[in-house]
């Protein structure tokens, strides 16, 4: 009973955003508010994909950035994590340094980066922002993957080495298949973090690579907020996240706590 009340209170704001996207203009700005739209109105979504397509383009940008970041982060992160898990490379201090990277405030990091990127004339380009996101996500990916790799029995690698595999082959043929579930879960989280990120995207994009969270904030104007746009874009942007929660719930504990529970 108590649990049901809590769940309702938590879920209502999301419900409100959801139906807002399906309301007609009159329902959106009615007093008292409309709690259930008379008929679902898809116009708010259709308008995103018609005309100049600026809004749809921001989703494509987000997709390009998040996908590239995830792939690169996973490759670099898994390699580094393997080295740390198996050879204790860098030891205790290296592990702490990596973790402390994650705790730096984005807004503090982004200002010098903005100046440097402006100097190098690479502001508002995909490679520049992807590099930043890779660096930003690496500590998390390394931390998670190190835990997963430590769980893999080392005997498998030993026998592969005895059978004449090179070290790289061991990594490729033994570790990758064994850590598949961990790699998948970590990749999903890296994708979500990048998809949701705002500060770097706000500062390092100007017009060509604007991501969807930055575009949404543009619709909070001083005089008027364009709720139809905000609602529809927020719902579209949250769909990948909703699916993740539904299908990957069992990975969430470890992912959200950055793998810190297991260490």
């Amino acid at each position, binding site marked *: 009973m108590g649990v049901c009340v809590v769940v309702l209170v938590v879920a209502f704001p999301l419900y409100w955003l959801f139906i807002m996207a399906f309301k007609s203009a009159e329902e959106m700005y009615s007093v008292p508010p409309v709690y259930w739209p008379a008929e679902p109105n898809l116009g708010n979504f259709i308008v995103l994909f018609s005309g100049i397509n600026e809004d749809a383009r921001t989703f494509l940008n987000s997709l390009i950035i998040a996908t590239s970041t995830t792939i690169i982060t996973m490759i670099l992160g898994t390699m580094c994590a393997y080295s740390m898990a198996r050879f204790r490379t860098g030891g205790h201090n290296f592990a702490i340094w990596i973790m402390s990277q994650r705790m730096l405030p984005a807004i*503090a990091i982004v200002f010098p980066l903005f100046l440097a990127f402006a100097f190098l004339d690479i502001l508002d380009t995909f490679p520049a922002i992807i590099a930043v996101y890779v660096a930003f996500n690496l500590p998390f990916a390394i931390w998670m993957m190190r835990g997963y790799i430590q769980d893999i029995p080392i005997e498998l690698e030993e026998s592969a080495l005895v059978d004449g595999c090179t070290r790289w082959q061991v990594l490729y043929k033994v570790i990758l298949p064994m850590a598949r579930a961990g790699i998948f879960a970590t990749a999903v989280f890296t994708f979500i973090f990048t998809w949701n990120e705002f500060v770097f995207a706000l500062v390092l994009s100007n017009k060509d690579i604007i991501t969807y969270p930055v575009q949404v*904030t543009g619709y909070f104007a001083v005089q008027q907020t364009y709720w139809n746009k905000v609602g529809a874009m927020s719902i579209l942007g949250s769909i990948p996240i909703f699916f993740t929660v539904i299908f990957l719930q069992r990975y969430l504990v470890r992912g959200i706590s950055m793998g810190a529970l297991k260490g």
Partner: protein
Amino acid sequence: MTTTAAAVAGGPRTGVLLQDRRFKYWLIAPAVLVMLLVGLFPILYSLVVSLQNVTLFDQDYSWYGFGWYEFLFEDDRFWESMWHTALITVIALPTELIIGLLLARMFLGNLRAKPVFIAIILLPSVVCPIVVGAVWRLMFDTRYGPITHFLSWVWGETIEITWVVDPTWVYPVILVAEVWQWFPFMFLILLAALSNVDTDLTDAAEVDGAGFWTTFIRISLPAIWPVMFIAILIRGLDLVRIFDIVFVVTKGGPGTFTETTPIYMYITGFHQFETSYTGAMVFLVIVLLSIVVVTALRRVEISR
């Protein structure tokens, strides 16, 4: 485990030892390189620029000494922004912790449809913070928002509160949004920790006549403390860096009333174009935070 790892690295196949040495550094090299470029460069650069007198329009790279740091210590707006940040952190952190803990306690028993409930509760934590800001702007809308409507209904007459402009109400709005987004994080971690507490111990304590609170404080709390400490640390550091939600809900307004330090940095850097001054602020904040982080991480020894 570690001994076998050492055996593989160095052990009987001594011929490949040298090669292994290179191999393990080759593996970490690309990741370290990227992190150094994006992580270390900004710190050094902001240190250098903070000792000069540069604005975005005036590229004068002569040395200026520690003038900007002196200015920083006299800048009331900076210290007020620190106070705003601390205020939000000090209220939001315990609130999230307590709600998370209570809810985790409720979820400990057998519950029908538990995974579904947990999934719904988790949603706010994985949604984009900008979307969360939008959600609460909608909820607290002065004319069309359901909260205004509900309160008017309870009150019996139409109330008009300009939630995100009225100084009395801006902080509650920000705090509600922040707590709503992040108490699920606390809840999830504490639920996992509480589920691992040995029920034999708590049962035995209760048989011996210990009350609920005694059992909780003497047995459960010490057992979950290491995990709880990490959760508090992660959330505390997130709160100190609060930017997204404030940016969407109030942009620091009314005036500078809800301006947190990250928002102030953004304004000095990108609206007032005070490059050197922002550099000084960036450097000071990074140094302060790094000290906190490294001290805390050493204490928890999470890199067992």
